[in-house]
């Protein structure tokens, strides 16, 4: 059963190896003349101002939490889609209720402004 995935493992090993070789190639052949100004973060030619890592707007976290909710919903929908022909009407009604509940959640997030950017 799991043996079907062995070819994918071979591909992953080869792809990762290639990516590391490409990084190494650049380091082997590229010139290397560092100086302090060159090592500064790029800010369109200005001297860098303030720290490079700032706090991120809390809105992005909200989007991430919403994503996890709806992604789990889709994880439930996928196996349902495979067996829909066997479970027929019962499955359809159950999924309609499930999607309805999550849709109410989406509308709530929408109304409270979680999807707005200012």
């Amino acid at each position, binding site marked *: 059963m799991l043996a079907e995935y062995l070819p*994918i493992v071979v591909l992953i090993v080869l792809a990762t190896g290639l990516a*590391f070789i490409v990084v190494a190639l650049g380091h082997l052949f590229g010139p290397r003349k560092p100086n302090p100004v060159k090592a*500064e973060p790029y800010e369109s030619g200005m001297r860098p101002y303030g720290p*490079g890592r700032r706090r991120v707007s809390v809105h992005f976290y909200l989007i991430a939490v919403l994503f996890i909710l709806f992604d789990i919903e*889709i994880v439930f929908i996928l196996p349902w*889609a495979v067996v*829909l022909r066997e479970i027929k009407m019962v499955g359809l009604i159950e999924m309609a209720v499930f999607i309805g509940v999550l*849709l109410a959640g989406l509308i709530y997030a929408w109304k409270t402004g979680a999807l*707005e950017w200012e």
Partner: protein
Amino acid sequence: MSLALLIEWSLKSVVIILVILGGFAYLTLFERRVLARMQTRIGPNRAGPWGLLQPVADGVKLIFNEELIPAQADKVLFLLAPVITVVPALILLAVIPFGPEVTLFGRSYYLGLASNVNVGVLYILAVSSIAVYGIVIAGWASGNKYALLGGVRSTAQMVSYELALALAFVGPIMLAGSMSVDAIIEGQRHLWYVILQPLGFLIFLIAAVAEINRAPFDMPEAEQELVAGYHAEYSGMKFALFFMAEYGKMIAVSFIAATMFLGGYLGPFIDRWPLLGPIYLFIKVVALLFFIVWLRATFPRFRYDQLMAFGWKILLPLGLLNVVVTGVIIVLVGG
């Protein structure tokens, strides 16, 4: 596991990697030539006949570029980020069959690495979401505020459109009654799913273009406001890896769209000459790639708030609607 099997898998893996690498090199040239023609320019035509050696020249130039690592960067993550970004693009094609079984010199060959895996669609979804890590790590590790902003924006955009992308896959899964890519292609023998799932195909195209950060959804690398987004600090071969990841994902997404909605390797006379399979697939993929380039030449970039609103308020409800309608029709008509 015998040695012969291992060699066969390795050879197939090398072919898949070469398809992405060669495709990447010539897709950059294809894009520049097509864009140039659409803007009534000529495009790169000096290196070799029709500019065919241009990708080679670009590659050699990038190898001999200086690799800068900013002083404030997190060195290990800075080196790892391009690797994490490019590997998913290279391995996405593992579950896509390139053609039906063919018989050559008395042996039958199977043109695909692992397309018989019974959760092929899940594999595509899982692998394509790994690329987000590479981008957010690149943005954070650079220690540059534009890179960080680009990385975070990109992450929010990719997770938002991933929902619509996954919902678009549900239609073909329902019609085929299986998550195996082989079964989905077999289900399209008489009618492509793009005809049964026009809305699903449209959602897939939009979400896929957003997922691979291509114009008009190339928000994370908006040159005018973020200089280059998450890869602002990258140079030389590490920059080339990000570039390779973007074009590799473009190719992979075209392969996936052709397979899920346009019948994959199927076409006229496929049963008589199975070797036509890869040719049909190639034609479909090139058509889709042309479409993506065309989009870039046509549409201006979305504003970020419009982009997020479009993903959550239009594409996600439409995806859910498509799932429900398809489900009702399958249950009532018996599909």
